[in-house]
């Protein structure tokens, strides 16, 4: 019998689900709402110098990669299965597109985090 790929994708979905349940709302609030408008968070909190320092530190890189990779794998898993719910049965092509996009995003993030230097 062919081995199922579900355990791998479900693990990534689960890990992304936990990480996003813990910090996605606060990240959205900070980077998307309160820092841009400068209410409850000074706009300098996300200044170029500060964010660059974060992204060049090894621990910052690790956090950014974990957030981007796991959020993506979590999201595409739900999008892939959710397509069936609205009557779109894409099959293998849809599956490849979904998980391929998450993998591509992960590789892109890893590349950018290396390219930005240490």
């Amino acid at each position: 019998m062919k081995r199922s790929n579900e355990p791998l994708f479900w693990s990534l979905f689960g890990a992304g689900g936990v990480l996003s349940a813990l910090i996605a709302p606060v990240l959205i609030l900070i980077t998307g709402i309160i820092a841009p408008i400068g209410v409850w968070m000074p706009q300098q909190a996300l200044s170029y110098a500060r964010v660059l320092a974060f992204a060049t530190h090894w621990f910052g890189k690790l956090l950014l990669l974990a957030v981007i990779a796991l959020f993506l794998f979590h999201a595409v898993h739900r999008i892939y299965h959710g397509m069936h719910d609205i009557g779109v049965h894409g099959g293998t092509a849809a599956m490849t597109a979904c998980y391929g996009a998450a993998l591509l995003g992960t590789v892109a993030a890893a590349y950018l985090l290396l390219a930005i230097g240490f």
Partner: protein
Amino acid sequence: MAQARTYVRPMQGWWRRNPYFVRYMIREASSVFLAIYTLILLVGLLRLTQGEAAYEGWRAVLGSPPSILFHWLALLTVGYHAYTWWKVAPKTAPDIRIGGRPLPEIAITGGGWAATVVASVLVYVIVRWM
């Protein structure tokens, strides 16, 4: 041979018939907002590698009204995902037993909600003051 003409229950709009399924679809839709948000972060990372002017351009877009509106919707739906994630955790978590008794559901769910609050406060404090 001709296909037998049997009644097939229409599935069009199935989830709108029951509030339980409407909530299910809102939760699943949160993933679309999360995916777009993550792509926005990825673009931010790309702009960061391209220098200060590129990064400031990205920040200016984040301050625009359509972006703020998107992030409010993302906050609501992804916040709902966080709420439901811990709500179903007793069914998805491994069987944890203390003194032979399974951990009560409210302990797992409540612990998860508390963890989200603590993690959120930590992230806020770190981003703002560290």
